[in-house]
């Protein structure tokens, strides 16, 4: 009677422990702002080249870079919504990791509010006064005293300040901090006015929709997908459009990067193949599939330069 059960268990073991014959898939980790794009490219890459679908992890830029620099085997690439810092670069070099930077496009941080709420144009200085921990008042750096919009600008509505945005581990947070940098070196405020939403922009959108008078800070791709429910605020008088972000008029824009490991490149040419798909016209061209998903493509000259870099890497990587 028991033999049957044991046979079944044995079968499960055989099925479970069989060793996969296919080459291990590429692995990328990092910014959750790039995650949806990288996943989409991964699938196209699979369908076009028949290579296994790469593994993409949205851990946040900082965590991704940390993993990337841990060793030559850990990750094939890292998605970053800001460039490497000096310390990160040094740490990577200590581990003998050789890598190449690819700028894959641009992204905008969009200030959103619920459709139909009171619209007011905001300036970078106003945003700083709203969310920085320390502000410059009367010649000195003080703890942010503002609680109501109209305290910042008399023309603003008399509404309580309530802003939802990225959390510290993410590259988006670092970029936001960089963009609103003023005379006082400070983080974003911690007194409950600025609310951190870790790596979940749908949550920010939900909160903006349900709680009145809330401003959310999300990335452009999420804004694109939810345009029917939310509205963007203009920053310094410029609204976020594909064009204004691409030409740099919109102040809250940032470049997005992918870093690819170059160690033992001749054994890992699929890294370059993946990047070729990522920078192809199919993906980031004028009506490319990433462009439609909300990635803001590079100017054409820059895109061509990257494609040239890749071709060069193919030559050197293939021969060495």
């Amino acid at each position: 009677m028991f033999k049957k059960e044991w046979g079944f268990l044995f079968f499960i073991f055989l099925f479970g422990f069989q060793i996969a014959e296919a080459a291990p898939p590429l692995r990328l980790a990092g910014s959750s702002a790039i995650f949806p794009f990288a996943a989409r490219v991964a699938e196209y890459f699979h369908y076009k080249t028949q290579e296994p679908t790469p593994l993409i992890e949205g851990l946040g830029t900082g965590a991704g870079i940390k993993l990337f620099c841990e060793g030559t085997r850990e990750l094939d690439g890292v998605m970053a919504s800001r460039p490497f810092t000096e310390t990160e670069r040094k740490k990577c070099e200590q581990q003998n990791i050789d890598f190449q930077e690819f700028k894959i496009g641009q992204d905008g941080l969009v200030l959103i509010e619920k459709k139909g709420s009171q619209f007011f144009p905001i300036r970078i200085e106003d945003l700083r006064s709203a969310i920085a921990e320390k502000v410059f008042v009367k010649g000195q750096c003080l703890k942010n005293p503002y609680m109501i919009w109209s305290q910042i600008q008399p023309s603003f509505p008399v509404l309580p300040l309530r802003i939802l945005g990225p959390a510290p581990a993410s590259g988006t947070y670092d970029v936001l901090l960089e963009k609103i940098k003023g005379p006082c070196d400070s983080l974003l405020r911690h007194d409950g006015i600025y609310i951190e939403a870790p790596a979940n922009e749908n949550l920010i959108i939900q909160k903006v929709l349900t709680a009145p008078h809330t401003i959310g800070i999300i990335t452009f791709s999420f804004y694109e997908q939810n345009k029917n429910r939310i509205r963007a605020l203009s920053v310094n008088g410029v609204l976020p459009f594909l064009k204004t972000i691409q030409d740099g008029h919109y102040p809250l824009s940032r470049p997005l990067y992918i870093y690819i490991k170059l160690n033992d490149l001749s054994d890992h040419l699929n890294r370059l193949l993946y990047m070729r798909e990522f920078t192809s016209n199919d993906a980031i061209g004028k009506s490319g599939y990433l462009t439609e998903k909300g990635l803001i493509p590079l100017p054409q000259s820059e895109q061509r330069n990257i494609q040239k870099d890749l071709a060069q890497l193919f030559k050197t990587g293939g021969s060495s």
Partner: protein
Amino acid sequence: MTSNLRKRHRQEKWFQRMGLFSLCLALLFLGIIFGKILITGLPAFFKTEIEAKSAPQHLLNPYAQYVDQGKWTAASDAVDMYYKNGYPGTLSPQDSQSIEALKSQNKIRLSFNGAFFTHSDSSAPEMAGIWGALLGSLLTLLITFLTAFPIGIGAAIYLEEFAPKNSHIYWIEATINNLAAVPSILFGLLGLLAFIHFIGLPRPSALVGGLTLGLMSLPVIVVTTRASLSAVPFALKEAALGLGATPLQVLFHHVIPSALPGITTGVILSLARALGETAPLLMIGMVAFIATPPSSFLDPATVLPVQIFNWSRSPEMGFVENTSGAILVLLLILGLLNGLALFIRKKFETHHGF
């Protein structure tokens, strides 16, 4: 005297009413949550299909141009949303016109979404499915069972039946009880440190996930097993001992069979908890985009709750219904497991019964 009696009766009636009210309130909340999930999730089991030849390429799913998907091909996310809810989204007016034209020619239809059960994760909601996550959950749960079950039962039997009653053992007992109440994310940290950094097992694999969840289930299994072992009447053991049975015989012939319904229930319930667990798996890197279903314990894998978590933070509208659909499947499986636990309990209670 009579008024006093009436007062006491009234009090009892009020108490009963309050209980009933609490029950109704709980059911109401449950109903609202479940109803919301059901309403958003049911459309996930149906998807819009277009006759591939007669439609422009960009109305089909993004991968239709690379793989032949048969005569009826899944429409793109935007078309799916438009056809189901009439919500135009990113479609241009020309697109919605051509959809209306397809509608009048009967070349667009809503059909059962089999791909939701046979496909793995995809970045396109119309192509995404739960197969990879289900398989990952199964492999993970198998590892959890294989580690937590023997170790947990063994520890419980030793502690309950053989361990000397000294201060060391009391200390161990207290620690196990505390561990059973520790937040699950701490087990994730432990798993990350022990299995990935120290032993160096591959990062998002069913093996590491299963071992971590095994650690998490272990204290619960020990506690429930000990409870059901201690519920076996002492008279039974004494009678067996009196008839000349050795302690080992008493244990295996009498105590364990009597305690078995309780033990199995405890094990199944803790496995059900492990199946629905997300937090510790986030720590060990199972939150990834994994489009290939795992074929071994060492392959990159994700599990159903993590898949739900991943979908819930995707920008596309189509993932909203996919998320709820996957929740429905998870709830169904959990319900089945809990039903199984109940069934085993009822069945064996009548035979050995304590």
